[in-house]
């Protein structure tokens, strides 16, 4: 939480678990920017949790001025369930309201003892995989969709892709309920050979637990994870914080905002910043949710709704 003496404006940013460090850094920078812009002090409070849970909390009355969640699907629930934001919320900010991106990569143990290089390796019989349950974790859905998208491209048919996923989840040692739990399983409990993780989470693990213990493996193909942001119209209107909330999100696209995202291992949207720091991000072929699945709603209904593809392949 960034506090300023006698704050003139207060904002609550309701976000998901892995952005804690990102927004701690960003809030300090934004408070300074806001002071320069308006001469006023601003206090920004952060709330972190599972992306879906956070969206439900806002729907149930948590007064978030802005939401910065993992999935556009979760943000969209604010419109679908409570009309807290307009239907076209995603077109209000550049890049579909996703100011930074990430992708899904592998974290393996030092020396990569099982020689894991791409998605194909994860379905080999002796590989133990750690990834959370996509029924309960937003991050896990990205992992699942990355794997499925790869299989579709590589194997060419839905049936083959489902078969691939079935083999993959058969190799999953522990199906944690959330991304943080999966990291605990892999890093602290030393379970499994590979953790499927967001790129920024994987690098944070290296930073936190020691670069000598793990390696990040970037597969040939993965998904473009686009965490989305928006201000919550009904709340900012009630609080009188519309201007501050908009500026808070728009500043994420600024050079400074983009650099802070890079420092926290998110891929920037700004081409200049990407060029400047691009070396730390390995090149790979990225596909989007829209390209492969026709959007989050469709992906959710096909794969994660009760009786969906995940239920089919995991219960078999």
């Amino acid at each position: 939480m960034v506090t300023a003496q006698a704050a003139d404006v207060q904002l609550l940013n309701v976000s998901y678990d892995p952005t804690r460090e990102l927004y701690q850094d960003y809030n300090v920078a934004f408070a300074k920017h806001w002071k320069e812009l308006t001469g006023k002090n601003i206090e920004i409070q952060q709330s972190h949790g599972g992306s879906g849970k956070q969206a439900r909390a806002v729907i149930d009355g948590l007064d978030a001025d802005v939401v910065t969640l993992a999935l556009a699907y979760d943000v969209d629930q604010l419109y679908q369930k409570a009309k807290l934001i307009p239907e076209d919320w995603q077109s209000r900010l550049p890049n579909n309201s996703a100011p930074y991106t990430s992708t899904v990569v592998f974290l393996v143990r030092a020396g990569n003892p099982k020689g894991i290089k791409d998605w194909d390796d994860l379905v080999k019989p002796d590989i133990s995989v750690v990834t959370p349950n996509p029924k309960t974790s937003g991050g896990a859905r990205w992992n699942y969709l990355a794997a499925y998208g790869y299989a579709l491209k590589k194997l060419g048919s839905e049936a083959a892709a489902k078969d691939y996923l079935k083999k993959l989840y058969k190799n999953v040692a522990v199906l944690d309920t959330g991304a943080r739990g999966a990291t605990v399983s892999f890093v602290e409990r030393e379970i499994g050979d590979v953790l499927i993780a967001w790129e920024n989470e994987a690098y944070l693990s290296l930073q936190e637990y020691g670069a000598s213990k793990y390696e990040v493996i970037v597969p040939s193909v993965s998904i473009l994870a686009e965490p989305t942001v928006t201000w919550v119209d009904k709340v900012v209107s009630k609080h009188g914080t519309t201007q501050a909330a908009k500026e808070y999100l728009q500043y994420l696209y600024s050079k400074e905002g983009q650099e802070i995202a890079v420092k926290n291992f998110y891929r920037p949207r700004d081409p200049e910043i990407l060029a400047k720091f691009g070396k730390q991000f390995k090149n790979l072929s990225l596909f989007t949710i829209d390209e492969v699945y026709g959007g989050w709603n469709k992906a959710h209904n096909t794969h994660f709704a009760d009786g969906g593809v995940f239920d089919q392949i995991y219960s078999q």
Partner: protein
Amino acid sequence: MKNHQLLLIAATVGGLLSVQPQMAEAAKKVSRSSKDAQIEALVRRLEVLEQRLAISEGKGQDSAAKPAVANVAGADIPAVKQLDQKVKILERKIEVSKETADAEKKAAPTFDVGPEGLKWSSADKEYSFKLRGLINADSAFFLDDSVKGAAGLNNTTAAGPANAIPINGLGIDRFQVSRARIITSGTLGKYTDFLVTTEFGSLSSGGPSVFDAFVDLHYFPFASLTAGKQKGPVGLERLQDVSKMQFLDFAYPTQLAPNRDIGILLHGEFAAPGRERKSSNGQASNFKDLFQYQAGVFNGTADNQNPANTTAATYDNKEFEGRIFAHPFQLTDIDALQGLGLGLAGTYGQPKGLTPVNLQSPAQNVIVSYITGTALNGDHHRLLPQGYWYYGPFGLFTEYAISWQTLTSASSTAVKQQTINQQNTAWQVAASYVLTGEDNTYQGVKPRKPFDPYKGDWGALQFLARWDELGVDKNTFTNIGTVKTPFYGFANPAGSVKNATSWTVGFNWYLNNNIKLVADYEQTYFKGGAASTLGSPSPVMNRPIERVFFTRFQVAF
């Protein structure tokens, strides 16, 4: 495999792997327990692995029992590493299962059974459903049955009783279930409560009746809205939860206050500055804070109207009802006066053609009987100052009621209809003391030691005494006929009393929060209400004294 089995396996094998010196001993203990063949098999496998490990390191059989490997996870033996992974996975799966179970438990609805009935709640407590009940199994015994038909009653002359005394005396000795209620209530979406009370007892006037059916929107504690059939916000005794009423029957002021009616009520509560709110909901019966108000619009009811008969509006004009009540000394630190509550309530309406309801004695004998054709036509308003003072085991309760109403008379071919203004009054003063020392409150008495004779616990015992009186306006007995041929267009003084005074003493024995035994003795004196046959027209006499012993066995949950 069930969690507890996983736990046993993981704990056993994990312990064996990590606690080297105790490993063999622990393994033997587990083996001896023979609780689970699977555990034994795993232990045996582990022992074999340990022996192989020792041999491979050239340490022989002896050292196998005490392996020198500090961390088997780090041992360069694939089989051991594999087993280590299995154990870790098992342990983690147990943790995840527990996390999932805990999360499911948190998200699962809850079901409680307790002194306040059955309650189902959603995990977030924003939705709930309660099922409660009330049974009043009563008895009433008239003490003057032995003199029925005999001289000596005070409405008689030396020649004998003025009116024929009923064969059963002054009232029928009886057992009755006066109240048998099912009360369903709940919360829908945090800010909306509902309550439905269905009466199956003798108060229901025949078949089951809906006594309460309302929805309460309470977004703001200081301004809530209740719509539906509910108690009119007027009588202090009426507003008390019926299971907490101290005497077996209501006093006369409650007969002059409106009963349940259908309408809309705005109400609010305010806690004293700096004090926490103590009332758990917005119901008047539960009010414990500084100040409350109620203001509502209702269809309008006659005095003493049975809620079973309050089902529809009978005229266009509506009745306005309002009340303010405060515990003024909550603004001070005077401990002895914190439980002093004072209030004022009133109603105003202009009923048209509403039939007045007879008034009753404590023993439910009709003591004011309106002539058929009498109707409320015009202004009807009531005023009820009220108050109580509870301090420790002591309680004092008082209420005064005035009911002004405009009555039009019955008529006949011989007499024209007339109109009178009737002003009936009633008051009561009641005192009570909890002999076992528990706090006496408007919300009832909670025994410190619920009845359990095997432990020497007997519940709580309360002594009570009450004086109450009803005064009926003399205009009620206006003769609109002639002296020779009287015609009482409102009420006949030979059948309706102009005054009733009752005193009551009793004991309440609270076995626990749900069961209460009540024993009351009530004696009522009447003025008027009977006639002698010795003159013509019959001179009005006083009704006999009503002496009744009541009991109640109450179950409320």
